[in-house]
């Protein structure tokens, strides 16, 4: 867009005078925000730019006249949009406004306990600050304050101190308007008004932490942070969230090398000012007592022994040297680390056998990624403009919660049409008022083909689309037919970056096809190597199979859990038989069998960047500066040196610079060859087709130790349709057993809107570790019986 076009888009500017200064703002701008443009700060509490105006606290009263006609009384500047001919006098120029504001501030403080010295918010509290800037030095209140029991838990992670609350209703409006979780509300009246929860509906919102962040006083506090620190003892670092591909900007607050809390950062194009509870409250894994701190090498007796770095690097290089090796990259690497793995595979190991998809995946998906996703620029702005959104293999609220908020905002603001092709109607899709197209697991392709979209539509495709053969082919066909945009939204934070970095068997950095000689020439020139492998490499499952058929003998594994694989038995067998170099932050299944274990830095201990699902770079600096742990790329570089095949990227910065120098590939992308769908298996009366997804809050390794967070996880249930429930003779809460030849999961049943042929389980929740127990996750036959 040119500057001229940008100017042309901004229409209807209105000029108003505030405290004697003219300012021009777009029509509809609230007075309080027009004043901000001039640097005039009008005190406020209930006002929040992302919430609907409410005018409840009355702190922002100003004098207003329009074309010479003055309002008879001061007006709340947070509720009144600018108008032509408006003259505003704030507390700076109007004694009436100043007195009104001081009066309101005095009222707010009469029932406030003024316990700032023991309040978490003290030092960063809008009430404290504005009481100093716009209040009276001393209160005239000599009566009795209203008291409440304090604090009370409104969920396992949020505490409420009703004495401190000034009833601005930010928390309740957020929960209702933004999160669509109206689980808290104001009740009682007068000075006894208070925030409350419902009797039978707990405050189990994935976004509840935002209420703590936007509370303008210390009324809502996080259970894990309460009394842990004072804001002025914290060192804050802008950072990016490692939990999912939404790519939230965060602020990490560290004291004495320990992360004490994380807050949502302010990024209007991505997460606005919100994040999810996982991003906010799941970080103790970094300081877990079992963190790997020293390199280890397995000795002749099969025991891991602590080793020096040179020893361990030499052992790794010796084990890899001369062997055909594969590289398995976890889904949470930074772009720089993924680039390191990508270059390490090609330069140090001379192979394209690399895959970042440490999960169920398919070759159809790999072609889809190389042909349709790499370099794609579908973005949040496309969702904002979309005429409709189609969800395929994607549960936004569970798998990319900030995308959920984005879609929900448009649903609320302008009734954006959402269609979900899924086997089960989810809570999130109900909140999006989605048109639920119910399909049997595996029958997605047929339903996708029937959709009618336009060039203004966006198809949000999740990683689980790869679990249904032909689904991605149908998505490609639909996009080609209608012009709709494709947005691939993986669950993990590192996958899009790893794809762009070429940590996959069919493309090199920047989406360059490995089969394209010109592309290879580009890359080999950049890397200063003579030749790059030209065959498309193996996928992760292919690599495990190759190890098990004795073709590959060594594996470099970065943060991969074999139980996430589509065939965990084959994965574990392969890891046991190959020479394994493991780069990890904490002991895992791989550590148990690895030959060399190399500890790496966790996100707060390193710098780098993630690429969110849009392909947008999310750079972050080191938040814990004195960590001794190193980023993966640094360690890979040392191994490459030891192998005498240097990569020349010994730091995150050099890796970032080198990757940036590549730019996007402007040649032809790989072709996409459509794959036919597989017929849904016939089911017997006691059988069903399994479907599952991971819930946002579950038993994932990055949430370990966060008990307060786990307290708000949705309960584990097995979901069946009303028809199946009546056949089985079960009702909500009864025990149901879901089993196959590998094992069984027994959970209370929930009868809900789900395809009659399907049964749903949470993939990795308490009592339901589907892949580890059943060895399958979706599309397979299971037996469903009353327990």
């Amino acid at each position, binding site marked *: 867009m040119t500057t001229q076009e940008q100017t042309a888009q901004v229409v209807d500017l209105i000029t108003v005078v505030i405290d004697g200064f003219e300012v021009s703002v777009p029509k509809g701008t609230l007075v309080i925000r027009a004043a901000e443009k001039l640097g005039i700060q009008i005190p406020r509490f209930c006002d929040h730019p992302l919430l609907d*105006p*409410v*005018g*409840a*606290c*009355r*702190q922002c*009263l100003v004098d207003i006249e329009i074309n010479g006609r003055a309002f*008879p*009384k*001061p007006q709340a500047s947070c*509720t009144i949009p600018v108008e032509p001919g408006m003259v505003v006098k704030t507390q700076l120029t109007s004694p009436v406004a100043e*007195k*009104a504001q001081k*009066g*309101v501030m*005095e*009222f*707010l403080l*009469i*029932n406030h306990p003024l316990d700032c010295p023991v309040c978490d918010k003290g030092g960063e509290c809008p009430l404290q600050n504005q009481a100093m800037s716009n209040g009276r030095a001393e209160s*005239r*209140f000599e*009566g*009795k304050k*209203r008291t409440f029991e304090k604090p009370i838990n409104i969920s396992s992670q949020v505490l409420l101190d009703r004495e401190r609350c*000034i*009833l601005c209703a930010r928390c309740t409006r957020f929960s209702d308007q933004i999160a669509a979780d109206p689980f808290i*509300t*104001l*009740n*009682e*009246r*007068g*000075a*006894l*008004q208070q925030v409350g929860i419902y009797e039978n509906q707990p405050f189990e919102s994935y976004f509840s932490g935002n209420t703590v962040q936007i509370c303008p006083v210390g009324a809502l506090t996080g259970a894990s942070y309460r009394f842990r620190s004072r804001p002025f003892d914290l060192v804050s670092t802008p950072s990016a969230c490692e939990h999912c591909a939404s790519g939230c900007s965060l602020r990490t607050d560290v004291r004495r090398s320990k992360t004490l809390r994380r807050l949502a950062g302010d990024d209007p194009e991505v997460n606005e000012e919100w994040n999810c509870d996982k991003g906010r409250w799941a970080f103790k894994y970094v300081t877990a007592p079992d963190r790997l701190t020293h390199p280890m090498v397995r000795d002749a007796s099969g025991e891991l022994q602590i080793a020096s770095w040179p020893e361990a690097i030499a052992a790794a290089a010796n084990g890899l040297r001369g062997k055909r090796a594969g590289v398995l990259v976890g889904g949470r690497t930074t772009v720089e680390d993924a680039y390191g793995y990508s270059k390490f595979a090609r330069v140090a190991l001379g192979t394209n056998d690399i895959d970042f998809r440490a999960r169920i995946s398919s070759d159809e998906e790999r072609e889809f990624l190389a042909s349709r996703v790499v370099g794609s620029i579908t973005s949040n702005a496309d969702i904002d403009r979309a005429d409709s959104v189609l969800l395929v293999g994607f549960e936004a609220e569970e798998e990319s919660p900030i995308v959920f908020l984005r879609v929900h905002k448009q649903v609320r603001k302008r009734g954006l049409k959402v269609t979900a092709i899924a086997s089960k109607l989810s809570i999130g899709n109900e909140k999006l008022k989605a048109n639920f197209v119910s399909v049997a697991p595996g029958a997605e392709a047929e339903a996708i083909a029937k959709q009618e979209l336009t060039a203004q539509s966006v198809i949000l495709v999740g990683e689980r689309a790869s679990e249904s053969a032909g689904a991605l082919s149908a998505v490609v066909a639909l996009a080609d037919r209608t012009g709709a945009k494709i947005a691939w939204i993986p669950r993990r934070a590192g996958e899009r970056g790893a794809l762009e970095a070429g940590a996959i068997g069919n493309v090199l950095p920047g989406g360059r096809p490995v089969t394209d000689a010109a592309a290879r020439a580009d890359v080999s020139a950049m890397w200063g190597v003579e030749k790059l492998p030209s065959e498309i490499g193996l996928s992760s499952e292919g690599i495990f199979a190759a190890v098990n058929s004795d073709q590959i003998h060594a594996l470099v594994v970065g943060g991969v859990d074999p139980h996430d694989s589509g065939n965990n038995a084959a994965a574990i067998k392969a890891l046991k038989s190959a020479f394994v170099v493991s780069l990890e932050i904490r002991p895992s299944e791989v550590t148990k069998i690895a030959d060399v274990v190399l500890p790496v830095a966790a996100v707060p201990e390193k710098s780098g960047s993630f690429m969110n699902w849009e392909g947008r770079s999310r750079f972050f600096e080191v938040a814990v500066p004195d960590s001794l742990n190193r980023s993966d790329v640094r360690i890979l570089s040392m191994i490459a040196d030891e192998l005498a095949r240097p990569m020349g990227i010994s730091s995150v910065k050099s890796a970032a610079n080198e990757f940036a120098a590549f730019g996007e590939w402007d040649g032809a992308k790989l072709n996409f060859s459509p794959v036919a769908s597989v017929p849904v298996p016939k089911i017997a009366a006691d059988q069903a087709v399994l479907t599952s997804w991971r819930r946002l809050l579950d038993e994932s390794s990055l949430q370990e130790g966060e008990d307060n967070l786990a307290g708000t996880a949705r309960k584990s249930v097995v979901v069946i349709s009303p028809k199946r429930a009546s056949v089985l003779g079960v009702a909500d809460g009864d025990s149901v057993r879901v089993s196959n030849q590998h094992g069984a999961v027994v959970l209370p049943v929930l009868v809900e809107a789900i395809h009659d042929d399907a049964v749903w389980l949470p993939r990795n929740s308490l009592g339901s570790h589907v892949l580890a127990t059943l060895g399958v996750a979706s599309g397979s036959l299971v037996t469903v019986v009353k327990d």
Partner: protein
Amino acid sequence: MTTLTPVLSAHWDEKDSFTMAGYKRHDGYKAAEKALKMEPDAVIQLIKDSGLRGRGGAGFPTGMKWGFIPQGDNKDHYLVVNADESEPGTCKDMPLLLANPHVLVEGMIIASYAIRAKYAFVYVRGEVTHVVRRVQQAIQDAYAAGYLGKNIFGSGVDLELVLHVGAGAYICGEETALLDSLEGFRGQPRLRPPFPAIAGLYARPTVVNNVESISSVPSIINRGAEWFSSMGTEKSKGMTIYSLSGHVTNPGQIEAPLGITLRELLDLAGGVREGHQLKFWTPGGSSTPIFTAAQLDTPLDYEGVAAAGSMLGTKALQIFDETTCVVRAVLRWSEFYKHESCGKCTPCREGTYWLVQILRDLENGKGSEADLAKLLDLCENILGRAFCALGDGATSPITSSIKHFRDEYIAHFTHGGCPFDPYASTLFASAKAGA
């Protein structure tokens, strides 16, 4: 002497005034039949011409309010009748509904037709079960007679009328809080704009009218705008119901043309309690600044009362004689406002909480002149700073009583407590004395 004009209350003394038969005996439902044969816009014009103004307190012209409803917008329109009469001292809508519920039903039929509403709601306060029963019966009878439901009066027009019973919150008399409550939410006033005429009940164009305003409509249809505007004063047309309570010989409702004075009304009601003199009174309920004997001849119409520094409000004339401690009376009112403040906005929520504590101290003789200054300053910080008029109303009795009775406030702390005998001001005290 003003001639009384009983219209709404003309037949309250008949035994069956509240029944369909009783109502029809006096041309009941003739106005609706007539109005349904007129153009809706002509009905609105007729009401505009009559000069009828809202009887709920604010005095907004009723016809103009109806005219604000956008027509031809392909949206449902709603009529909502505010029968949440809760203002202390006000007792006109409840007796009206008790004695003549059908006049409201008929008025609602006409008003709904005029604004093209197919649904109309009556929001009655929850405490008045006996009134609720009579309105319910009247609605049922009107349905049975074919005046409500499908094709009413054979005119092809449909109208559903729903009775909703509130749960006892003063704030729900505020029209937008009433709409919230009617929708099933907690009653708290809404941010305006949008005004109810654009986005009211269920975000649809809605007219909210007082019971008395709507009940006045059938008589205007029957007898014409000129007849109506022949009563009252220049800008305050028609008859209205004044309710007298407190230290008055015969408390109750008096229907008179707007502009009658308290002196006349007191004469009609047998005067102030025997052996006592008028000390102060409210012209329109506790939210309107109090008057003293000096305003006995103030015309009780919208302009007259405003010119004298108060508001006509709901025409709730509470009469207090010289036995009454004004501080105690104001404290009672303030406790009411504190109890009824909805809690949404700071000045009203915290201000009423604070005012009560200061007033309680003053009544108990604890305080000084500085506290009066503080009290007035706090009122200044509430008046015009609150979200709705409840906060403003809470300050009226305080500021006006200090204006008229400053010495009495001071007497409380020079005297070391309230100088009055609270027993003497009770009605049972006079009953005993009289016996």
